[in-house]
């Protein structure tokens, strides 16, 4: 009974998370179309800097007089884009490595496993920082840095799942029927790995968004783009904390928390759906 209720709860929070994500996606898609270019152009802005939230700017203005609300809306797209693409990259690498090292034994698997374990152990953020320092600034670098450093957990999980699947009698049956590697991977391993990968991808987006904001905060982001992390970087750079400019500091952070939490909740709900009941 209690598990039943917990399941229901997970579904409910999952639905709430999905709603948040849909809203964020709509904002991300619509914002660039609706926001006039002048509103975010520091050369054309007319409002005073550091205005408290009010009628004209319902989240106040930043250090250049731009509306924080509009910046937030504009930043949604970048944050989501980085989060999604980095997660796709990370999960893609992870799945590939995981399936290969799980399916094929021998030297290849050994080497892949070794590399996976190595990267699993390394602090991902440190590595991402190192990568973004040595590569040219830009969204591509951020995505690459996050994607290249966060795949090992997926690889581990996918590998475990692959091994589980491969140990199942139906895979043995497929082999006995004469199925080769392609058949086993394509027909049996991948389909059973996909739900797990999906869950993983959802959670990966969550951590990628946090990673993006951290890198941006450390000044390693793409300075020509507005993202939530970059806004916090700006806020810090221009002294929002000593000014107690809560309207500049709170919204980007809250947006990150909301979206990351939403992805996590959706991920957990998905997990509850795809993992077989005890």
């Amino acid at each position, binding site marked *: 009974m209690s598990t039943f209720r917990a399941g229901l709860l997970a579904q409910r929070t999952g639905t709430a998370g999905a709603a948040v994500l849909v809203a964020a996606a709509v904002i991300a898609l619509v914002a660039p179309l609706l926001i006039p270019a002048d509103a975010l152009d*520091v*050369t054309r802005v007319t409002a005073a800097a550091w205005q408290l939230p009010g009628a004209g700017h319902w989240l106040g203005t930043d250090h250049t007089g731009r509306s924080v609300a509009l910046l937030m809306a504009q930043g949604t797209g970048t944050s989501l884009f980085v989060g999604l693409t980095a997660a796709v990259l990370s999960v893609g690498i992870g799945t590939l490595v995981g399936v290969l090292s799980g399916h094929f034994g021998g030297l290849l698997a050994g080497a892949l496993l070794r590399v996976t374990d190595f990267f699993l152990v390394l602090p991902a953020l440190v590595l991402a920082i190192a990568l973004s320092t040595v590569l040219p*600034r830009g969204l591509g670098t951020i995505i690459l840095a996050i994607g290249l450093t966060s795949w090992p957990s997926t690889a581990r999980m996918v590998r475990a799942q692959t091994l589980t699947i491969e140990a199942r009698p139906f895979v043995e049956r497929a082999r006995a029927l004469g199925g080769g590697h392609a058949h086993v991977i394509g027909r049996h391993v991948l389909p059973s790995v996909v739900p797990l990968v999906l869950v993983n991808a959802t959670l990966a987006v969550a951590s990628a968004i946090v990673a993006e904001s951290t890198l941006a905060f450390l000044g390693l982001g793409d*300075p020509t783009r507005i993202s939530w992390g970059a806004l916090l970087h700006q806020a810090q*750079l*221009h002294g929002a904390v*000593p000014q107690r400019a809560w309207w500049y500091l709170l919204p980007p952070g809250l947006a990150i928390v909301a979206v990351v939490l939403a992805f996590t909740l959706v991920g957990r709900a998905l997990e509850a759906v795809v993992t077989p009941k005890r």
Partner: protein
Amino acid sequence: MRVKLCALLAVATTLGLSAPPAPAQQPVVLKVAIVQQIDSMNPFLAVFQSSTEVGRLMYDYLTAYSASDQSVTEGLANRWEPSADKLTWTFTVPEGKKWSDGVPITARDVAFTFTLMMTDEVARTANGSFVANFSSVTATDDRTVVITTKAPQVTMLALDVPIVPKHVWEKAGSIKDYANDRMPVVGSGPFVLSEHVPGQFIKLKANKDYWRGAAKFDELHFVYFQNSDAAVQALGKGEIDLVNRMAPAQFDSLQGKPGVTRNKAQGRRFTELMINPGAQTRTGEPIGDGSPVLRDVRVRRAIARAIDLDALIARVNLGYAEKGAGLVPPVFGKYHWQPGAAELRTFDPAAANAALDAAGLPRKADGTRFPLRLIGRAGRAYDEQASEYLKRSLGDIGIPLDVRLVSDNQLNESTTAATYDLAFSGWSTNIDPDFVLSLHTCAQRPGADGKGGTTDTYFCDETYDRLYAQQLSEFDEAKRVEIVKQMQARFYDQVPAVVLAYDNALEGYRSDHFAKFTTQPAQGGVIMAQNGMWGYYGAEPAVRTSQAGSTGWGGFAVAGAAVAVLVLAFVVVTRRRKATAGERE
């Protein structure tokens, strides 16, 4: 259980409520925020501005710049005399000046310092350029030091080299490995280094035997801050007394804050927009991939005309800067140059458009003429914002800008390799303009292998070079000033770079702790980052009613209370569970 809880609470309250024991007579301390790291306490190695500044407090130079007008004044030496051919300079170190350990300061210390730099390559790390032209430095007696140079050198009274005590440093061994951190460090300046915790703070004590007289307070602490944001916050709280290098917005945020006084000073720094004039090596080989259209001076001038310097200052510098023109900021009054009415380029996009049309670069069907790249440093607020303006301004004259903000390293790489069209740059200048002028001579361009260049803008102009050589050997100051101004006019006319602004130095201090600081120059000058130590040395403590060191020990009370509540909650929950545990599964 209850006993334990009470004990915990007791400890928490004690921690929270008892104030730290306050000694009866506290020393008067000036606490200064520094944002930049200290790279080394060894004056031969210290390169960072912050370390140079601390070095100035510990070691006097041969000569100093006065606080009032930055003219040359007594340092360790009180008299100096050039020979007729200007190749030999005789400095006199008067009697009565002492190292902080009581040993008298002599001409031999001076000779030792310079000779060390001339013989030991490592000792040249920080200030090697000053001795590059020296042929010998000798102390003829304890009072007299004679310096001979290979060629006449106008900067002989601007030798910014800390003089170290011979009796300490001759035992130092390898300069590279000498950290100079055995406390107290023997020095000649107004303060003596007493403690250095890397990444945290530097403590100096006033030198009671300083020849100008001891400072009016006891200790000077430099406290390291991660960023100016944190420093400004700490100033607001009264944790520190003095902050500089504030961003305009931070400076504004301190307006009207009780107990805080702001100091908007003329800075030594200018910001420029470099325009690649067709970079070449010393031998005249083209280098890099700068846009060829920029070789045409008409195009460069047009670009300069399209930039509204006033708007940039108003929006990006928030007004805390002066409009740029020549290479010497107005703070160094006599060498500063302003264009006359005839030379002046006003902001005029229409004229710029016309000039580009005339230069044979008409607009294409899509309204653009040719694209350019602009690079700047990521993370520098100025570059991030100003690039937005330039994008817009140059867009208006048909030049679409591709803005790339990159790391420091990449920016350096691009500017050295001349793989840029437009780039942000900036220099801090000295009282003597020689260095900043030298950056634009042909000889500074890199060698055939693309290495060894220290040029700023790849500028190479015969007229300019001729003038540079002239001023270098002009010992009549008025004449030299005139030549330096001509050079700046030439630079302005040829536009290898647009000087965008002379940034104000924005400082703030706790006027409830310190009533007065000596600025340099006296009018509109800075407290920190001076060409001297006057700012700190001349600080006068305010008459304080109470030690306002209220670093909020109340925080402990709050934390203690929070911990107590948590512990209480834990105990209550556990007890309740215990009580009902028997009746539950």
